[in-house]
């Protein structure tokens, strides 16, 4: 069994070796045989209709690079006529009457949406365990004695997307990243995951968690695939006032640029206490690899990075508490069956409709915004956010890319941290600063622990320098094969 990249599928489609219908049907079959619980819903009919139409377009001369390639969509994106749950009971039966701009962009390039992937409820979680539709099994297993049959979490919140690609149920998937929700599961599942600069991808039609941090991005096997998929996702959108109006870029154009003279910064704060020592070694080895590609390595400092987590856990819940107010049982979605009056309807609908983690964050957020506490929490957190952002500006005067571990430890056993929110929150300690600063960041496969678990190398580049990051990742993948390793529970295809 080997991984199949978007680039390979595109070449097969282009040469006529396989049709989109054949490829799509193959993946749909794999999904049926999987027990990873990676999907909340699969739209077989819609996918095959789109595949058929892609084949026709190709016959008529359309040569869009990803025309006819099927992918999985995180169930946070609205797609016209399909169930869109955001991993929550409160939207269990919600059918979106419109399509998210990112998905619309992909579809206009001929990319096929096979189904909606599982996720932490409203993207709040780092293990996919907060999903109303159940946890997702990481296709990877620990080889440690006694762990061979134990399920590990795929990370979160884009856990279903990560598992789907890692288990070979889809060649690529979309994810969203508010504090690490693309990069942490990519690291746990041995994938390439990119969170673009804030504003690259339109947020229209992407169900909001924390509006000032949320950003969609690709989850793929390779950096080249990430560049290909990102090309179809981005673009200015007049329907999103925070969308960036910047000239279109081909992210594949500079993939093979030389890394001669590249300055890599390693923030000392990312290699301190809390980092698994085995992982530290893997990351250091991976970074060393770049020296052979002509890069230089130096230590840098992000002195305020210890403030990122506390700042994030005020800002994100504050925005979420307000964003999730619309789920009130009045117009759509779940409504409690019995209630005595309006207040009771709200209370019961939201008590029964939301899971514990979502409720916890709504309460934290409402508290942080309440009168008398606003200055101490929300205003203060915004100030910290600026300090963190300034740290990057300073660091990037000395280096072109910042590297470190994506997570402090590898994938953990399901259930092992779900009762301890703070230890769960620590998963995102290295990824959150890039969200707060709005910078592009990614995770790429960097090697395996002695127990056979994937480790992610975290890359952060200056604002709008996704192309640089993809170039760095691609060159690394040209000289390593970590990203080509196949997970033990992956589902074989028919090729």
């Amino acid at each position, binding site marked *: 069994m080997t991984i199949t990249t978007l680039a390979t599928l595109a070449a097969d489609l282009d040469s006529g070796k396989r049709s989109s219908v054949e490829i799509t049907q193959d993946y749909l079959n794999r999904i049926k045989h999987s027990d990873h619980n990676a999907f909340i819903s699969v739209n077989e009919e819609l996918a095959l209709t789109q595949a058929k139409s892609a084949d026709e377009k190709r016959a008529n001369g359309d040569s869009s690079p990803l025309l006819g390639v099927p992918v999985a969509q995180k169930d946070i*994106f*609205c797609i016209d006529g399909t169930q*869109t749950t*955001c991993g929550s009971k409160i*939207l269990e039966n*919600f059918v*979106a*009457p*419109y399509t*998210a701009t990112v998905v619309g962009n992909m579809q206009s390039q001929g990319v096929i949406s096979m189904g909606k992937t599982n996720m932490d409820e409203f993207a709040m979680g780092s293990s996919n365990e907060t999903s109303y539709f159940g946890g997702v099994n990481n296709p990877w297993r620990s080889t440690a004695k006694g762990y061979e049959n134990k399920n590990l979490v795929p990370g979160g919140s884009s856990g279903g997307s990560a598992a789907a690609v890692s288990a070979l149920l889809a060649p690529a998937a979309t994810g969203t990243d508010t504090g690490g929700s693309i990069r942490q599961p990519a690291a746990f599942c041995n994938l390439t995951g990119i969170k673009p600069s804030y504003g690259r991808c339109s*947020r*229209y*039609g*992407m*169900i*909001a968690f*924390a*509006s*000032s941090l949320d950003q969609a991005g690709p989850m793929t096997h390779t950096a080249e695939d990430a560049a290909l998929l990102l090309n179809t996702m981005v673009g200015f959108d*007049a*329907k*999103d*006032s*925070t969308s960036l109006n910047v000239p279109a870029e081909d992210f594949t154009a500079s993939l093979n640029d030389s890394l001669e003279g590249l300055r890599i910064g390693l923030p000392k704060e990312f290699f301190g206490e809390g980092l698994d020592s085995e992982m530290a070694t893997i990351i250091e080895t991976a970074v060393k690899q770049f020296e052979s590609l002509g890069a230089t390595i130096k230590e840098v400092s992000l002195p305020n990075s210890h403030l990122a987590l506390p700042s994030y856990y005020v800002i994100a819940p*504050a*925005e979420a*508490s*307000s964003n*999730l*107010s*619309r*789920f*009130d049982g*009045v*117009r*759509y979605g779940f409504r409690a069956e019995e209630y005595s009056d*309006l207040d009771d309807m*709200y209370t019961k609908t939201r008590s029964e409709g939301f899971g514990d983690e979502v409720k916890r964050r709504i309460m934290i957020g*409402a508290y942080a*915004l*309440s*009168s008398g506490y*606003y200055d101490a929490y*929300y205003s203060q957190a915004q100030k910290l956010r600026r300090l963190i952002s300034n740290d990057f500006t300073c660091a990037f005067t000395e280096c072109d890319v910042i590297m470190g571990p994506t997570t402090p430890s590898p994938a953990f056993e399901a259930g092992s941290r779900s009762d301890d929110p703070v230890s769960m929150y620590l998963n995102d300690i290295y990824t959150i600063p890039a969200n707060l600063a709005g910078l592009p960041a990614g995770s790429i496969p960097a090697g395996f622990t002695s127990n056979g678990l994937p480790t992610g190398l975290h890359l952060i580049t200056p604002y709008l320098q996704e192309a640089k990051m993809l170039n760095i990742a691609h060159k690394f993948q040209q000289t390593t094969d970590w990203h080509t390793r196949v997970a033990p529970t992956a589902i074989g295809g028919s090729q």
Partner: protein
Amino acid sequence: MFTWDKRWEVVIGLEVHAQLQTKSKIFSGSSIAYGAEANTQASAVDIALPGVLPVMNLEAARLAVKFGLAIGAHINQRNVFARKNYFYPDLPKGYQISQMELPIVGFGEMDIETPEGPKTIGITRAHLEEDAGKSLHEDFHGQTGIDLNRAGTPLLEIVSEPDMRSPAEAVTYLRKLHSLVRYIEICDGNMQEGSFRCDANVSIRPRGQEALGTRTELKNINSFRFVERAMEYEIERQIDILEEGGSITQETRLYDSDKHETRSMRSKEEAHDYRYFPDPDLPPMILEDSFLDEVRATLPELPTAKKERFQNEFGLSLDDAETLTADRQTADFFETVSKSTKAESKIVANWMSGELFANLNKSELEISDSPIDTSQFALLLDRIADKTLSGNTAKKVFAALWDQEGDVDSIIEAKGLKQITDTGAIEAVVDDVIAACPEQVQQFKDGNEKVIGFLVGQVMKQSRGKANPQMANEMLLAKLV
């Protein structure tokens, strides 16, 4: 005169919600036309589907800036939208997008006329926000229906300083504001449809005391008459409480116009904590100087400037100028007529304030709906100036014009109202009257000059109103003296 004048000083501040005359909603492309079938003007954004985002309608900003410039206010060229969070079924997102710390319009002022002379009312701020939908409690068998057509309609909330000292003063300010927003064409001012709504913050304090008393906020007052009555009721209520040794509870009260009373809606303890914070979906709005210049260029001449110009240019009295500049259509009507008629401006003013306004009021019509247009009105006054019509016959022509019986000249012709100015013709009638009224002629000659009026009246009667009364008068005097 109310008793509160003696011991108590009244302090009133008003919060006015003016619906801005845009074509579409403030954050979506839906129409804001009034009276459409329920929920037919509610898009995905308006009903707050998951994932939708607001996009600012720049036209609303333009109208808000227009208001700010009209009252000489500070315009915040960087202003910020904030979310006001609360749950209510007609508030689809669970928050209202409004402005908190940095409103689009900062401090400005407006002058009003009071019986004690002119007074300046401070306008603290004016900010943009979206309206909520409507809850419908009838026809749903004990349940509540929600109509979201109004949700997202752009509003400008204009907040005054607590500068008013009586309900009458507050109403004067409110009328002035109402006139201004229509003048500059940012709001249609229709109170019945809720396009112009007023909340009043009312408190009292012993005369001489500087500290403000505890205030109550009166909501749901939707006409000028009710505003004044609601405040009067509320002031009496507060005085009764304080004079009996009680204390005022800070609360929101609803005015019930049927029962003429206010009643508590929610107290401070029950007041919402709105958890305001800057809306992360909308970056701060930056208004360039060029935008302000562009808006400034669209400002019409403002009422105060127009009032002064009408006095200087047309020689109008302050009262006439005030009446004729109360709204833009009236002022335009006056100016158009004045410039096209040979009649003096004073005559134009008199005929407008007299016949025209009386008829408009009786028919409950706006001047823009007047059945007599400016050209016919000007022609009518021309016919008085050239002595074709007397004041009395002109009124007959006016009535016929109002009933749309034709144009000025054809009506004069048809009704035979042309004034006789031919000396010979008048002289013949004058001679007849002198011959027919020897008694009155003798009285005049004995020094009773007042009797001339009777004789002129006889001339007019005999000529069936057509003789020029001034000529008749002169001719009678010439023959009798």
